[in-house]
């Protein structure tokens, strides 16, 4: 209705909202979660929720429902499916809620881990430890109204002013029309569950062939300390690898916001720094270390389940027989007591090689400012990629975390899991450039963690304890891998890695001042962490070789070389700026960095109701936008409509009257008209 009445009933104030992050629809084998508007967008009278009491206005007493609720604080912890709410806009708070907030479930990846009725049934469903006790599960609820998040900006100021001028009830009076209203569009194409939306995307004879959803997926990144032939898949004779695993994705309630500082970035940075520390120390080791960065672990272990599946089906350069042990790095932001916990699986723990790994790690941490301890032996593993390996084989492994039992991270998989939550305090009088040079306590701590991980891997791969002390992570390296307050992870500023586009030229990396978006996204698009980890890992573990640009891009060292492409990956990158110049040096980096698919085996097997593999898909949509306008009262709308209808009827009558009397009205003396038709 707003569309054709807008010439006098509606005044537009803002046509397109900037910097909004919607909550979108995701689907799995059994459920749909997330939010959506109706097809034509949902309209409601703006109501700024300043305090909890204000909620009654929206839910019962307000005279002009439905309302578009603007949340300014962190009240967003409870909800109700209520017809009086047209939608919700959350203005991102500038400070984190002190009591913690996690929209994830209290038992992450509950049904896809190793513990089930057939494996340690007493540990299944977080029976022993509830890992994320603050988790309220909001991210996994279904909402039938749109929910958007907005950065505090000019747009939010427009909304506030509009509300104050038109909608605020003064001294208990009801606000008068015209009222400030808002319309949000986030209609989702997919519905019900993954089986339904995948089926509809694949309908062969449809009048309107259209994809409605896409599987979540991307790529795992891995690199080995010894080059492995990537072309020959399956078992490698005589090869024994220690897997150093970490996850590289996160999520939040909103699409496009996934800061994952503690939950993802700490482990990621620690392992990258450890890989760099081991760069020159792995030549004499008799085992190979395989750094693996699993993608999509947040969504029922997409990356790790696919790698295990590939190893089982000889689609990976190694198979499970080649895996010696696994060391996984989880959330490792250190608290004040500098303690880390070595979690292991109580079911396979009887295996003596786990004890060997644990003692190696203890040895590795000796002399460092951190202490490694073990939680109670009856405690199961926390949510981790390692669980997916245990599902198929009892490989010895340990997961390093900063929590003994429940997560110490109060903001697990929320928009508040950011730099602030890690207490990265910079002195306010530092410039942006100085902040990058400054090593925070958190960065120092993380360097210690990285060193411990590196030394642990060194020992586990057969290194002699005497040689261990030369393995030292570089705090100068962790620092640029550090995160700036309010701007997330600006790793790139120091490393100056530039993306190489398909035409061979270099283009810039993603904009520098936004926090990294750790959401995995759909499988057709490359996500941010994928490219970031790939390039940084290549730079930290690889070597610069003297190869021309053309050969480098063709994966060869010289014209006749067609062997090295099986062993190495060549990447043409730009280095830092030359002093006193705007030019950059370009060079070819040779590394063992490889990618492997991180798309759930459920989509390979086309088992969309799988209970063993992740089935998460993301709905497609056409438009996600919002607008603000002044809306007239319902009476005025009806009056306008009534007048319009009356005018139509009158004109019809008039036309009929005129045409029936046409011979009289239009008769001229000269030429009588023939009225018989």
């Amino acid at each position, binding site marked *: 209705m707003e569309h054709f009445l807008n010439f006098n009933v509606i005044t537009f104030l803002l046509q397109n909202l900037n910097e909004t992050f919607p909550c979108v629809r995701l689907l799995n084998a059994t459920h749909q979660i997330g939010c*959506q508007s109706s*097809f034509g967008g949902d309209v409601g009278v703006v109501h700024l929720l300043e305090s909890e009491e204000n909620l009654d206005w929206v839910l019962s007493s307000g005279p002009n429902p439905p309302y578009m609720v603007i949340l300014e604080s962190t009240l967003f912890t409870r909800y109700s499916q209520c017809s009086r709410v047209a939608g919700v806009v959350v203005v991102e708070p500038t400070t984190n809620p002190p009591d913690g907030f996690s929209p994830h479930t209290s038992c992450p990846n509950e049904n896809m881990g190793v513990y089930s009725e057939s494996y340690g049934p007493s540990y299944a469903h977080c029976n022993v430890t509830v890992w994320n006790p603050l988790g309220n599960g909001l991210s996994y609820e279904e909402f039938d109204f749109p929910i958007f998040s907005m950065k505090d900006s000019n747009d939010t100021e427009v909304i506030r002013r509009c509300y104050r001028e038109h909608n605020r009830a003064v001294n208990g009076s009801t606000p008068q029309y015209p009222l400030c209203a808002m319309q949000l569009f986030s*209609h*989702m*194409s*997919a*519905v*019900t569950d993954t089986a*339904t939306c995948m*089926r*509809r995307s694949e*309908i062969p004879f*449809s*009048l*309107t062939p*259209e994809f*409605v959803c896409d599987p979540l997926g991307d790529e795992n990144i891995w690199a080995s300390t010894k080059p492995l032939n990537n072309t020959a898949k399956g078992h490698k004779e005589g090869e024994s690898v220690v897997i150093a695993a970490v996850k590289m994705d996160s999520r939040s309630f909103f699409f496009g916001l996934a800061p994952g500082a503690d939950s993802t970035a700490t482990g990621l940075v620690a392992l990258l720094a450890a890989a760099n520390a081991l760069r020159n120390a792995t030549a004499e080791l008799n085992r190979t270390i395989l750094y693996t960065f699993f993608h999509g672990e947040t969504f029922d272990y997409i990356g790790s389940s696919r790698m295990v599946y590939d190893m089982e089906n000889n689609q990976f350069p190694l198979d499970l027989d080649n895996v010696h042990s696994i060391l996984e790095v989880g959330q490792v932001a250190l608290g004040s007591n500098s303690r880390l916990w070595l979690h292991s699986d109580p079911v396979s723990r009887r295996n003596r090689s786990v004890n060997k790994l644990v003692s190696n790690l203890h040895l590795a941490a000796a002399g460092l400012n951190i202490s490694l301890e073990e939680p109670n032996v009856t405690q199961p593993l926390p949510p981790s990629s390692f669980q997916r390996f245990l599902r198929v084989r009892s490989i010895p492994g340990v997961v390093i975390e900063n929590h003994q039992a429940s997560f110490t991270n109060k903001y697990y998989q929320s928009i508040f899991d950011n730099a602030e939550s890690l207490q990265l305090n910079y002195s306010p009088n530092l410039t942006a450039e100085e902040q990058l040079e400054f090593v925070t306590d958190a960065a120092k701590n993380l360097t210690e963690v990285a060193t411990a991980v590196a030394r642990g891997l060194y020992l586990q791969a057969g290194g002699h304890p005497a040689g261990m002390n030369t393995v030292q992570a570089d705090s100068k390296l962790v620092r640029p891998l550090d995160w700036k307050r309010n701007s997330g992870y600006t790793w790139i500023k120091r490393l100056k890695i530039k993306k190489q586009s398909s035409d061979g030229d270099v283009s810039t990396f993603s904009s520098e001042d936004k926090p990294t978006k750790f959401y995995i996204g759909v499988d057709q698009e490359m996500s941010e962490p994928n490219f970031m980890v790939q390039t940084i890992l290549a730079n930290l573990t690889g070597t610069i070789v003297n190869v021309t640009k053309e050969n480098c891009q063709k994966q060869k060292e010289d014209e006749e070389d067609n062997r090295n492409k099986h062993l190495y990956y060549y990447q043409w990158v730009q280095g830092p700026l030359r002093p006193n110049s705007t030019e950059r040096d370009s060079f070819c980096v040779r590394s063992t960095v490889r990618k492997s698919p991180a798309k759930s085996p459920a989509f390979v097997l086309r088992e969309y109701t799988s209970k063993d593999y992740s089935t998460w898909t993301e709905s497609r949509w056409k438009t996600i936008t919002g607008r603000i306008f002044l809306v007239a009262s319902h009476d005025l709308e009806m009056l306008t409509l009534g007048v319009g209808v009356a005018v139509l009827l009158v004109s019809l009558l008039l036309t009929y009257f005129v045409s029936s009397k046409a011979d009289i009205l239009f008769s001229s003396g000269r030429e009588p008209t023939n009225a018989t038709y």
Partner: protein
Amino acid sequence: MNLERLPNEEKLILCRKYYLGGFAFLPFLWLVNVVWFFREAFVKPAYTEQLQIKAYVKWSAVGLLFWVAVLTTWITIFQHFRAQWGEVGDSLSFTIPLGTP
């Protein structure tokens, strides 16, 4: 075509054609037949061919009602249960509106 100007035998031939054509799963021919020849069959003063025209129109009407009943029942059932039928429902659909179960 103006029926008024047609000789009676021609009318009968036309009416029969529409009646027989309807059996090729074309109930709209029967609808046209009923509407078009209703006046000829039931209102006009009697003539030789009228009896046959009357029969064709009557049976066209019966056939039409049958189709209406069948289609109404099927459409009601289909719209009501399409979402529940899941895969069967989707494969029976020609076009599925986005975002509906």
